[in-house]
């Protein structure tokens, strides 16, 4: 499909930016409202639903036993997947995953994995014989902007609520999946010249490059990704890096309050 770049939208966003305004009235680093629900899917062993502005994401956790890899006989594994599917927006087409979809899945996965929030050795059942594989599937139902952050949030919330179904597999009592950390992703988009936090659908259409930052509980960075055409300066990065620290703290509280 020929993607007619919406010049008028771009011009409008630029004019607004000159007055430090955004198209939906938010401030530069102001976030849309978030509604987080947990335990929403009865066939999943952990689940969460995030309504982030008009963006809606489900995450579900399923467990399965498998043989460990020979070089790591006591380690379980975590597989995180997130995809851009046709249900989420008119712009997504059916077919094999696009490069955009693959990037989403890998960036969300890295943010969670690299934070070390799950101790892979805690997933060992019998060393060298049997370990848990944790499947975290993130399902975007409605994309009105910033699905990266919504996916990451739904993902960690679903993990935090997950119960290891040991009983169903005849290997002991069900127990909570130990999740030690709450990594939070914060995404910024250049719109009308400067970066804004939590871009809306219009801002994604009329903006340029994008930066995703995943921060751990201690303020350490676990994952970075720059996407789309465009460049930025180290000073610009420093500003949003600082902002991300604040945003992450707020979002971490939302998760903590919800999942106790």
């Amino acid at each position, binding site marked *: *499909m020929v993607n007619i770049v919406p010049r008028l939208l771009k011009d409008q966003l630029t004019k607004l930016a000159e007055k430090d305004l955004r198209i939906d009235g938010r401030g530069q680093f102001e976030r849309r409202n978030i509604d987080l629900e947990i335990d929403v*899917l*009865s*066939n*999943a062993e952990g*689940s969460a639903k995030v309504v982030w502005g*008009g*963006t*809606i994401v*489900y995450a*579900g*956790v*399923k467990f*399965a036993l498998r043989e460990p890899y020979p070089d790591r006989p006591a380690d379980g594994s975590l597989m995180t*997947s997130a*995809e851009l*599917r*046709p*249900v*989420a*927006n*008119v712009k997504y087409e*059916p077919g094999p995953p696009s490069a955009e979809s693959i990037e989403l899945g890998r960036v969300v996965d890295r943010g969670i994995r690299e934070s070390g929030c799950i101790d892979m050795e805690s997933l060992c059942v019998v060393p060298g014989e049997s370990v848990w594989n944790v*499947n975290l*599937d993130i*399902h975007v*139902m*409605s*994309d*009105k902007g910033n699905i990266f952050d919504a996916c990451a949030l739904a993902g960690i919330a679903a993990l935090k609520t997950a119960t290891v179904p040991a009983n169903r597999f005849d290997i002991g009592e069900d127990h909570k999946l130990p999740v030690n950390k709450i990594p939070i992703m914060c995404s910024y988009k250049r719109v009308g010249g400067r970066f804004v936090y939590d871009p809306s*659908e219009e801002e994604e259409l009329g903006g340029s490059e994008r930066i995703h930052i995943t921060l751990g509980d201690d303020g350490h960075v676990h994952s970075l990704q720059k996407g789309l055409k465009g460049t930025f300066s180290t000073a610009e990065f420093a500003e949003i890096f600082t902002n991300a620290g604040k945003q992450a703290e707020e979002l971490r509280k939302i998760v903590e309050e919800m999942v106790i």
Partner: protein
Amino acid sequence: MGGYGDVELIAKDGTRLDGRSVDELRPVSIEVGVLPAARGSCRMTWGLNIAEVAVYGPMEAHPRKIQRPDRAVLDVRYNMAPFSTSDRIRPGFNRRSREISKVTAEALESIVMVEMFPRSKIRVEIEILCAEAGTRCCGITAAAVALADAGIPMKDLLVSVAAGKINDVVVLDLDKAEDNYGQADLPVGILPNSKEIAFLQMDGDLSPAEFDLAMEYNMKAVDEIHKIQIEALRSKYTGGDN
């Protein structure tokens, strides 16, 4: 159908394991306009089933070879989320979901005024978020509501429901356990006003008399579910007053 084992699914007095009578539906609820990115949408819970449907279009049909000069095509996808079942299922389409998508599209084409939108495409995305037997009926019923929510002209709604057979008894609306050990399943899609049949499948074993009884149960259930569809649409478009 499985048909395995001697599992007792129904008591002598006709009461089923979950307490329903032979011709009783599981609890059903419908909510309209739940997905902001879609032109029309619907969320339906039916027992433990959860289906959400998004409708996009009418839009230009791409690639051009799928265009029809005299009507719109319905591009329907029925998809089960990986976490929707007890054992995780691999994401992506399989032969089962492709067949269900096809018969669902053909059923919906029978009610949508497709002649009003030549050369165009209407996308219907059916997502099963939680599955407990009867997902195709849940998806079709929700899709009809989502199409109405999108303002697509239709000659009637469509209600899909299934009757089946367990322990040699015909019953309405099999749940998971009943489906696993059942002897037959007869899902239909009915236009609630004309009672015409737009969707029909069946597998298992039914005598002609059992078939007739199963259809009778189905027809009665159609009216019940149709009321819930209407109520959900009215609730959105009249601000919840009725």
